């Protein structure tokens, strides 16, 4: 049940640089981003002026893939985990391959996972949502019932409060997937929670909700009624299809902008009360221990954050000259209003270009185009949201919170670009 922790004793480091040189000498493959294929040998019979094999013979027919899947050449675009992080895979986390994705929508099969008791495989015919407590009419709803309510669609990011939590004491993981991959963004379809609560009829002393999961952890968190009546949803679909089991099939709670742990998956029950419950996940975990020994609790909103996804340690540079730098920014308090990029470790900044939809509490894509001379770079990005919050440096965050607060690390990330094109996760001052 442990949360991502700081590393006690890391394994002895192999020399990555030596390994890199060896691989390069042997002539390696490219393949570090979407659409990346194997570097074709110069002699290939599929290259001009030859006619490629796939231009002559017929391919597979329709429904050869009744449920489509990515090209076999994209097989390395997958969720990954860090085995030493947790005691078991049932209570663990996997990471979104941010460095291999484009736009702002995460494909359903690639959104990071965080389970506390494994993936519940639920027969929707045997699933129920019960709403009770301080209500006029305790309700029992089937999936079919839930789908009869008026529905809404909303794109929202979901970030685990422990995203980047391994980096509090210093740079530790060489990969954007691992440092920032506990975030994803999809379009949810479902019922405003407000409508379900109105159907049950809230009593006047209703102040808090306790959503509960049907998994083997029976996950529970206390949610204030204001959020429940604002933009909370009970969702049954993501990106146009039913939720995937690892994301809470058949029902999950959606709390835009708030820490992912509260978005209870496999939602089976909502109890209405007049006080918070102080469950394990909002006391023992998901609280911020400060240097003076006190602990901040109910830290619901995710502070504005950004990261450069390309280039990054898993997606090194291949070319001098014109370079497209790409990244993601998000805020739990509203829309992203500005993203700046630095090539010199935060000394000078230039405005990045936001592209695609800029939505409230959703991932926002940014680009910055520049000419790379081949000199070393210290890449950083910095998000500003519509409330005026500016993503802080890691040093500024540590001044406020010390090194042991685990959660809500939204400090500015630095990638060091070497002349070889290799990229490493570093910290700067």
């Amino acid at each position, binding site marked *: 049940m442990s949360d991502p922790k700081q590393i006690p004793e890391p394994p002895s480091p192999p020399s990555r640089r030596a390994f890199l040189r060896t691989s390069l000498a042997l002539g390696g493959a490219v393949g570090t981003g979407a659409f990346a294929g194997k570097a074709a040998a110069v002699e290939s019979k599929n290259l001009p002026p030859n006619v490629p094999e796939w231009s002559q013979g017929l391919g597979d027919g329709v429904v050869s893939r009744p449920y489509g899947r990515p090209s076999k050449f994209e097989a390395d675009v997958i969720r990954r985990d860090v085995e030493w992080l947790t005691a078991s895979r049932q209570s663990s986390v996997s990471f979104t391959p941010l460095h291999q994705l484009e736009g702002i929508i995460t494909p359903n099969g690639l959104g990071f996972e965080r389970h506390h008791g494994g993936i519940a495989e639920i027969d929707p015919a045997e699933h129920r949502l019960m709403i009770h407590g301080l209500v006029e009419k305790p309700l029992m709803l089937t999936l079919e019932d839930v789908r009869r309510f008026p529905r809404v669609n909303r794109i929202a990011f979901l970030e685990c409060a422990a995203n980047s939590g391994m980096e509090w004491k210093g740079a530790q993981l*060489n990969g954007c997937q691992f440092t920032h991959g506990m975030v994803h963004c999809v379009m949810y379809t479902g019922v405003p929670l407000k409508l379900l609560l109105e159907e049950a009829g809230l009593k006047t002393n209703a102040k808090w909700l306790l959503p509960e999961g049907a998994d083997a952890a029976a996950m529970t968190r206390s949610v204030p009624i204001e959020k429940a009546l604002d933009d909370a949803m009970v969702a049954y679909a993501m990106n146009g299809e039913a939720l995937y089991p690892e994301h809470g099939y058949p029902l999950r709670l959606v709390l835009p902008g708030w820490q992912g742990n509260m978005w209870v998956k496999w939602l089976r029950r909502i109890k209405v009360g007049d006080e918070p419950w102080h469950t394990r996940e909002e006391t023992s975990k998901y609280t911020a221990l400060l240097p003076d020994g006190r602990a901040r609790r109910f830290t619901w909103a995710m502070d504005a954050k950004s990261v450069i996804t390309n280039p990054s340690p898993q997606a090194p540079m291949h070319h001098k000259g014109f370079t497209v730098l790409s990244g993601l920014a998000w805020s739990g308090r509203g829309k992203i209003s500005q993203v700046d990029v630095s090539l010199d470790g935060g000394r000078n900044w230039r405005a990045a270009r936001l592209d695609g939809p800029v939505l409230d509490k959703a991932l926002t894509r940014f680009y910055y185009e520049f000419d790379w001379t081949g000199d070393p770079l210290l890449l950083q990005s910095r998000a500003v949201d519509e409330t005026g919050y*500016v993503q802080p440096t890691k040093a500024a965050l540590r001044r406020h919170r010390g090194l042991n607060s685990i959660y809500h690390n939204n400090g500015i990330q630095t990638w060091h670009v070497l002349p070889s094109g290799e990229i490493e996760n570093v910290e700067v001052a």
Partner: protein
Amino acid sequence: MSRSPNGIGAAVTAVLLAFASPAAAERLNIGRAASPEEIKGWDIDVRPDGQGLPVGKGTAALGETIFQERCASCHGEFGEGAGRWPELAGGAGTLKSDSPVKTVGSYWPYVSTVFDFVHRAMPFGAAQTLTPDETYSLTAYLLYLNDILKDQDFEVNEKNLATIRLPNEKNFFMDDRETAEKEFWTAKPCMTDCLPKEATITGRARILDVTPDKASEKAKESPPVQ
């Protein structure tokens, strides 16, 4: 959005009036009433004031036997934790140190959370199999391991559990980032000459290099810069 966690309601109502549906505040008559028996079967949550505790009782002495059989393989005989599984006892006085040990005794604010969590989610892989009496006994044993209870035969039950207080309760406080970290709301960040001199590298992930090998294989195979 409101910067005050307590004032969310005031600021928030405007944001999602888009959710105001044609049927707002009117019953749609969907679903059916949940019966008292159905509610009883799932209504397992327990609050710090004791609301939700089932009738039952237990002692640390009884809890020790259950703990050794059903909990110790992960949590250690004395709650010290095995491998990366959580420590449940000890850690007093470590919260301000470089390596805080957060246990029931050193960190958790409420005893009710122990009862609630053990019953709903433990033992790992056999959730909701412990009886109320077993859960009271395990709770008592954890309190005994943490020196909160001194007498292993002291009976913990639904009437007195909420009166037992944990030492760290007073050290929790409500989210105050929007005032404590007000300096981050500067709106207009520095754009030029923001550091007194050139940035220097102070730490590198590769010093530890704990990145999973397979993940960086692709990067390692990367061709040279052209």
